């Protein structure tokens, strides 16, 4: 499968040649295939958000290249706008991105700037409302009259409406309750399936990353510590120590049982996997 996105030796320095010079990212390398989900983890201030801004051309790298569909995104600086249509970025507090006087106008804004025809826009708006479970009755309301959770959805709808090939979500589930969090994960998966898009998912929640990501990129103080599958990462105690990350509880339990000598598989990610494994050890499901 071909790579949709290639990031090569990417570095970014804030305030270069000033007293406040600070290296935000150093030598980041990864690829992202079509239809895959890449998680990004690291502590606050490690450069995760800087990376997301570099990827859709809001910032320009100090060094290194970002290759999207085989083309360097800064090859023709004048075309950077079209990159932003292909790489949709939802900020950490998406509700801060709202500005229009109705929900519909807010959702349409991005796609209108792409020059899409009016009747096509309506179809797209209905499509994303369907994916995100936004009731059509609120389209004429002011986005500022909605609850925080609904506002987040409207902002996300605005980005999804542009149908970007890569959807970048910066901590989308912080401050959502468990049910809304699961709904959002399912909706992101539905978008990915519908448009064969790729997703970059920045999060502090190891449990959700372990459930949805194909690969996870670990960043520490601007440097890339690892990029690997959730199984490999969370079973690697040395890496967890070094990065200061914690495996999801269920993987911790699996590893501890394994240390005690029980036959535990190496690819346990979910409670169901673990339960199945224990049932096997107990000798069947028919007690």
């Amino acid at each position: 499968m071909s790579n949709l996105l290639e990031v090569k030796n990417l570095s970014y320095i804030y305030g270069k040649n000033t007293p406040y010079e600070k290296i935000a990212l150093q030598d980041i390398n990864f690829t992202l295939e079509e239809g895959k989900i890449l998680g990004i983890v690291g502590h606050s201030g490690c450069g995760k958000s800087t990376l997301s801004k570099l990827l859709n051309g809001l910032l320009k790298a100090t060094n290194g290249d970002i290759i999207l569909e085989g083309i360097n995104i800064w090859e023709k600086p004048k075309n950077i706008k079209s990159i932003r249509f292909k790489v949709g970025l939802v900020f950490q507090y998406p509700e801060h991105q709202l500005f229009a006087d109705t929900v519909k106008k807010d959702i349409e804004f991005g796609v209108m700037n792409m020059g899409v025809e009016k009747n096509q826009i309506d179809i797209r708006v209905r499509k994303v409302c369907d994916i995100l479970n936004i009731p059509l009755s609120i389209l004429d309301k002011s986005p500022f009259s909605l609850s925080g959770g609904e506002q987040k959805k409207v902002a996300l709808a605005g980005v999804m409406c542009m149908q970007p090939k890569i959807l970048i979500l910066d901590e989308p589930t912080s401050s959502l309750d468990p049910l809304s969090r699961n709904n959002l994960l399912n909706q992101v998966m539905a978008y990915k399936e519908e448009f064969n898009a790729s997703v970059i998912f920045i999060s502090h929640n190891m449990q959700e990353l372990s459930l949805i990501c194909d690969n996870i990129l670990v960043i520490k103080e601007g440097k890339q510590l690892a990029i690997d599958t959730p199984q490999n990462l969370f079973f690697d105690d040395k890496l967890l120590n070094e990065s200061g990350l914690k495996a999801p509880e269920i993987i911790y339990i699996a590893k501890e049982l394994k240390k005690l000598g029980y036959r535990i598989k190496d690819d346990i990610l979910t409670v169901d996997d673990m339960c199945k494994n224990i049932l096997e050890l107990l000798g069947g499901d028919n007690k």
Partner: protein
Amino acid sequence: MSFIEVKNVTYQYQDSSTKALDNISLNINQGEFVSILGHNGCGKSTLSRLLNGLLIAEQGEVIINGINTADEESIYEVRSNLGLILQNPDNQLVTTVVEEDVAFGCENLCLKPDEIRKRVDNALKAVGMYDYRMFDTYRLSGGQKQKIAIAGILAMKPKCIVLDEPTAMLDISAREEIIKIIKSLNQKEKITIILITHYMEEAIESKRVIVMNKGKIVLDNSPDIIFSQVELLKSYGLDVPQSIELIYNLRKRGYKIDYTLSAQGCINNIVSLLQGNDI
């Protein structure tokens, strides 16, 4: 008499057709550590704002340390007894220098300068931010800002602190630090803590868990009893920690395994289950 008495309180926002709180009654004693869980919009935050008199109940009464919050004359006494920490620290820092921010509440209580100095230093030490006292507030990380906000409340020497999702915007290490600070304030300083959260692993740290749903209190018990009611919690849009979900799945299949609140406890119980099975 309890420190906090909420009696038959109902609250409805002006532009809403449903009641945010529907006939709630609740007593919390001095020194308790209580968590409040519930899905978004269940009324948790409304309750927190009623407790420190930012909102006043339309029906029913909220009494803090013997004072009714509806009594305008003594509202400052209520607020110095009961401090409120919000989710976003940026919304509650008011000055540009850390120690000035921590002193802000005390200044409004008209305390003497040397008393304020003492309290600010102690509060900053309690949250581990004394070395940052001369820093600019806007250059701090989210977790550091939240610690400063807590120090500002601490300096007012409240009997109770209400925290409304204080860790929602923080990374894991900052989250753990904040919870550690909250626990030590409860244990060492005997401050009553009310922690509103979406993180089940934080609620487990408390002694009493209250679950809210659609403006009502639906469960109020110790964490071990609350978290053994997995199906009920899920019906309220809540989740349980993975270790409890695992035990729940095994019990559903007829295996005898006890609920426990820690990962280590879960491992121990699984080991006894597996060993029992060998015999």
